């Protein structure tokens, strides 16, 4: 996966969602492909912790007849952790407390598909309240 494409996918993600604080995109080998974190060491430790959480969740459900774990949300009063994975990569995100779960999962899955190189048109507009939402100027 081209790193530029992955970085662009994450940039779009934080542009459209005000609830997502940080996100990291990780390949199947555990390497960070792209991250919204400026510090590479923090991105790597976030990716490692997310992979440990995912592995523990898969182990916890291992005894039961379930299909592959596709996504998870861990909700705490301090914020939520979201992880979505496909066959080749995973995306982990940290959000504000009590996020809109469906929207965050939708945005993460869209980002994952975008990073995989799927042509996703048109580009979604920033939601009201997000960092890049266009404020109405009140004129005209």
């Amino acid at each position, binding site marked *: 996966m081209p790193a530029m494409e992955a970085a662009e996918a994450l940039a779009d993600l934080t542009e459209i969602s005000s609830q997502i604080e940080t996100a990291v995109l990780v390949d199947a080998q555990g390497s960070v492909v792209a991250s919204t974190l400026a510090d590479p060491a*923090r991105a790597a430790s976030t990716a490692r912790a997310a992979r440990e959480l995912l592995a523990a969740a898969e182990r916890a459900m291992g005894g039961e007849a379930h299909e592959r774990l596709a996504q*998870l949300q861990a909700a705490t009063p301090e914020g939520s952790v979201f992880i979505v994975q496909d066959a080749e990569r995973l995306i982990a995100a940290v959000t504000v407390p009590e996020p809109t779960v469906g929207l965050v999962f939708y945005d993460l899955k869209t980002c994952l598909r975008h990073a995989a190189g799927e042509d996703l048109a048109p580009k979604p507009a920033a939601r009201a309240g997000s960092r890049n939402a266009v404020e109405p100027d009140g004129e005209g």
Partner: protein
Amino acid sequence: MKGKLVAALGLTVAAVAGTVVWQRRRRRRERVDLYFADGSMVSLEQGSLEANRLLPLAHDVLDAARGGY
């Protein structure tokens, strides 16, 4: 008649207040929701064996992402 009305009103207010308190308390509780490829979902509430294993790892992710490591 007036007494019955007051009692009914009191019961309604108590029920609404109870629901609000229950919902707030539930939101404060930690949990892990697992979604599988076949569309099934398992919710692990704080206090269960599995959640007690997974929630510290979720806090590790939060700490790592926010620079608390």
